[in-house]
């Protein structure tokens, strides 16, 4: 016997209304402590980003060699590094840089990738073939290899790191958008829009894009995790921001020589990267479960 639920109101695009998804997501958060904690962590992180100047107890760039390598205490909650800089203040300010790198690189990659995917899927033919072969070439560079090549060409700066990581995100969004366009472009409501004379741009933006928003949000959340990790990795390798920027990956790189004598120098920025990436991964998983319950076992 199958249990059927009451029919739900559907939007013009044939998708359940967004409030229903939000309610489902919230219910999942209440049921799953890990998801709830990760949501709270991301909210806290957003607050830290906004209020970093108020939360930081010291100037993150202020050096005082007399207080170098102090372990955590009442004054310096996370201790100090080799230049006597307060690690807690640097971690708090570092949240701004890490989230900026994650957010803007994903936004750029998403915009370019979805644009490429929509164009390829909608127009098909030679356009599709050319664009998707270009995506195949980008996919031939594993992981952050392409980002490293781009940074080595453009030089290391905050903007170049964002651009490099954006290119790293383009293929996944392009493929996803193309797949969704192919699945929807021949549906009746798209034909109907075409029949009443809607322009291509209008069909894409009003009728096709709303249908792929759900998976895009999921992938954007998961991609935030990869981009934050990628940004920290580039900084660790010396290809991201230059010292004395309070960037988490750079802080780990600068503290690695003293990992035995002063592990706190590496521990707190490392923990910050780990918790932030974990929180975005858990949130992405939860969103995916809500939007596509078939993927639950993953």
């Amino acid at each position, binding site marked *: 016997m199958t249990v059927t639920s009451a029919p739900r109101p559907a939007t013009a695009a044939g998708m359940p209304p967004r409030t229903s998804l939000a309610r489902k997501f919230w219910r999942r958060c209440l049921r799953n402590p890990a998801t709830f904690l990760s949501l709270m962590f991301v909210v806290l992180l957003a607050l830290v980003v906004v209020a970093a100047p108020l939360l930081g107890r010291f100037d993150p760039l202020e050096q005082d060699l007399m207080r170098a390598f102090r372990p955590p205490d009442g004054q310096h909650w996370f201790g100090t590094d080799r230049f006597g800089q307060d690690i807690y203040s640097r971690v708090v300010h570092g949240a701004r840089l890490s989230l900026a790198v994650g957010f803007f690189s994903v936004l750029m990659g998403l915009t370019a990738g979805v644009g490429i995917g929509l164009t390829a899927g909608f127009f098909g033919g030679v356009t599709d073939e050319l664009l998707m072969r270009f995506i195949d070439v980008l996919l031939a560079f*594993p992981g952050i290899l392409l980002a490293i*090549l781009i940074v080595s060409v453009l030089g290391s700066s905050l903007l170049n790191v964002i651009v490099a990581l954006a290119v790293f995100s383009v293929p996944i969004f392009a493929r996803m958008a193309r797949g969704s366009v192919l699945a929807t472009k021949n549906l009746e409501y798209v034909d109907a829009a075409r029949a009443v004379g809607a322009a291509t741009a209008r069909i894409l933006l009003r009728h096709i894009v709303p249908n792929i928003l759900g998976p895009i949000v999921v992938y954007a959340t998961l991609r935030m995790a990869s981009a934050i990790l990628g940004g920290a990795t580039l900084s660790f390798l010396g290809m991201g921001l230059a010292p004395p920027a309070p960037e988490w990956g750079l802080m780990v790189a600068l503290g690695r020589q003293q990992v035995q004598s002063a592990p706190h120098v590496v521990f707190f920025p490392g923990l910050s990267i780990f918790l932030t990436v974990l929180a975005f991964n858990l949130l992405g998983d939860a969103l995916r479960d809500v939007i596509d319950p078939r993927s639950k076992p993953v």
Partner: protein
Amino acid sequence: MRKFLIRRLLFTIPVSVAVVFLVFLSLHLTPGDPVMALLPPESVGTNQAERDELANALRKRLGLDQPFHIQLLRYFGNLARLDLGTSAVTRDPIGHELAPRYQATLELAVASMIIAVAIGVGVGILSATRPNTRLDAIATTLSLAGLSMPSFVLGLLLMLVFALQFGWLPPSGRPASAFSAEGFRYLILPAVTLGLQGAGLLVRLTRSQMLEVLREDYVRTARAKGMRERWVIYRHALRNAMIPIVTALGLQFGFLLSGAIVVESVFAFPGVGRYLVQSVLNRDFPAVQSSVLLVSLTFVAVNLLVDALYALLDPRIRYAA
């Protein structure tokens, strides 16, 4: 089967050519004069006239004064002869510098792949055969933690505990190949760091595939016949679940090659990854180009091999071709 492989090989050729073209083009996308990016670091302190002279000599030596299409043809020609050019810093042939490092990176990638598959597939099966238990929850949480942990932090932690605190393993370097007893000890920490990260993804993938397959009718039939659970899992479920997992292994190998760049830097492991990082920091652009090319073409080749394996495992692929 042969038809499938030929088709797949034909697809690989244009992708490889495009990768070479993109890597070649990267030098020309350098802001300003690309020759300035190739000037050796010792030229930084010299005056403008000397620098111009050095730049002109270098431009001529590398053929950068030729038209773009001639440079491109020459680049492809050199690659066909396995000539990767000379390092702008050491002035040694890049091919000679990369050869031993490539061996080191392959040893690291293969060792970490073995660790990733052993842990990832093993824990994935355990987790899928005991769904919604405490063990399942621990396994899935740890796999996500493995995926979220930066490899450079995990590497430093492992180094701190197993090398610096307990002194069980050497902290960094690679005095010999992993095929010697001494070299093997130096491989363990980098391989475990990289392998644990790779295992995270494989646990999730194996678990989801196994859960799906365990719900299939043929598994129910096998159980109904009274077949032992272990046989059901290994003979029926795992063999079918392995097909998408094998495909993922190709991507996983690429992930490990890219991860090796970071892990080699943490453990001062002299592989292609560390060479690439040092080349970027030294602005040795020919070395950067060659390293990037080597890693991506290896990735393309491994994906081709994995697809061949995929066709061997799944007869439907062979017949479809």
